[in-house]
C-alpha cells in the first residue's frame, strides 16, 4: 500500500516536471515584513502562468491560499516559483499564513 502510494506520487511528480520546463508568462510577488506587494495582482484568465514569490524578510513567510490550493513556506531571502493552472475569471484570495493580520492579497483573473 505504501509502496503503491509512493510510486503514484513519484510518477505524478515526473509527469509534472516535464510540463513545467516550458516558458510561461511570469508574474512577480513580493512578501516583505508581513506585507504583500502588490496586494492585487491581475492575471489573464484561462491561461497557465508562473508566479515568482520572493520573501524579502526579515521574517519567514508562508504564501497560502485554500482557494488556489497553494502553500509555500519561504525563509527570508528566498525566491520560489509557483505554477498556476488556467483559472476562471474571478477574484482569488491568498494570504501570508505567518502574518495573517497584515498579509492579505488577491489575484484577479480577467
Amino acid at each position, binding site marked *: *500500500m*505504501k509502496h503503491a*502510494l*509512493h510510486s503514484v*506520487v*513519484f510518477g*505524478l*511528480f515526473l*509527469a*509534472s*516536471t516535464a*510540463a*513545467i520546463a516550458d516558458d510561461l508568462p511570469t508574474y512577480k510577488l513580493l512578501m516583505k515584513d*508581513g506585507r504583500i506587494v502588490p496586494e492585487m495582482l491581475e492575471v489573464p484568465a484561462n491561461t497557465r502562468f508562473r508566479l515568482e514569490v520572493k520573501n524579502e*524578510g*526579515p*521574517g*519567514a*513567510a*508562508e504564501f497560502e*491560499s*485554500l*482557494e*488556489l*490550493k*497553494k*502553500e509555500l*513556506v519561504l*525563509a*527570508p531571502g*528566498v*525566491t*520560489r*516559483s509557483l*505554477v498556476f*493552472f488556467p483559472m476562471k475569471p474571478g477574484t482569488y*484570495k491568498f*494570504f501570508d*499564513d*505567518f*502574518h*495573517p*493580520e497584515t498579509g*492579505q492579497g488577491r489575484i484577479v483573473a480577467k
Partner: protein
Amino acid sequence: MGNAFFVVWRESLEAFLIAGILYAWLQGNDSSGRGKHALYAGLAAGAGLALLLGWALLSVQDELTGNALEAFQIGTLLVAAGLITQMVLWMRKNGRQMKARLHADLSAAAEKSGFVGVAVVAALAVAREGAETVIFLYGMSQEGDYSALIGGALAGFAAAGATAWLAAKSLARLNIALLLRLSSILLLVLASALFVAAIDRLIGAGWLPPMLDPVWDTSLLIDDTTKAGKLVADFSGYRARPALTTLLAWAAYWLLVVIGYRRTRP
C-alpha cells in the same frame, strides 16, 4: 509577539492534540507502560525530523527540488492520514479486547505493531507542523528580535500544550467507552482534514484534476480565509469553496471509515 504567539500555538496544537489524545487513551487502556514509551520515542523522533525537514525546506532554491519536497510533504500528509485512521481502528479493536479479557492475553505481536503505529503517528504529527515552526522561528531569529521570539514562541508552545492537556484531561475523566468513542472521532476528523489538505495540494500542483471547482461557495457562512476560519479548515477539512475532486475524496474517506468501523464493531 502576539503574532509569534498565535502562529506557534496554531502550528504546534495539532501535534500536542494528537499526543494528548494518544496519552489519554494509553492511560486508560495500557497498563504496561510500553505504549507511553512508544509515544515518547515517537515525539522525540518527530522533533529530530522536524529540524531535518525545516533545514531541507530552508535550503531549497530551485524548482525541481521544490517539487520533490512538495511531493514529499503531500506523501507525509497521506501517510499520516492513513496511519491515524488505521490506528483508530486498531484502538477500537483492542479497547474492546482489553475490556472483554482484561488485557491479559492480548497477542504480543498485535500489541507491538500497534505501538509502532502510535510512535509513527506521533513522529509524523510533530515533524510536519514542526518543520514550519522551525522556519518561522528561524525567520524571527534573523530579524534579531529575540525577546519577541522567546516570549512569543514559549508562550505559544505552552498554550498549545495546555490546550492539549486540557483536552486529554477532560477525555480521561470520561468513562472508558465514551473516551474511546470521543478520541476516535477527534482523531478521524483530524485525519480527514489531513487527507483533504493532501488532495488540495495534489490539485494545486497540477497532479490531480479539480474537475468542477468550486462546487459551491459557503464563504458567507464560514470564510476560510480569516484567522478563525482557517483554523476550522486546518482541523476539520472544511473548505468554503471545495473542488469536486476534494469533495469526492472526502466522501470516499468517510465511507471507508464507516465500513472499517462497522467491521470492528464490538
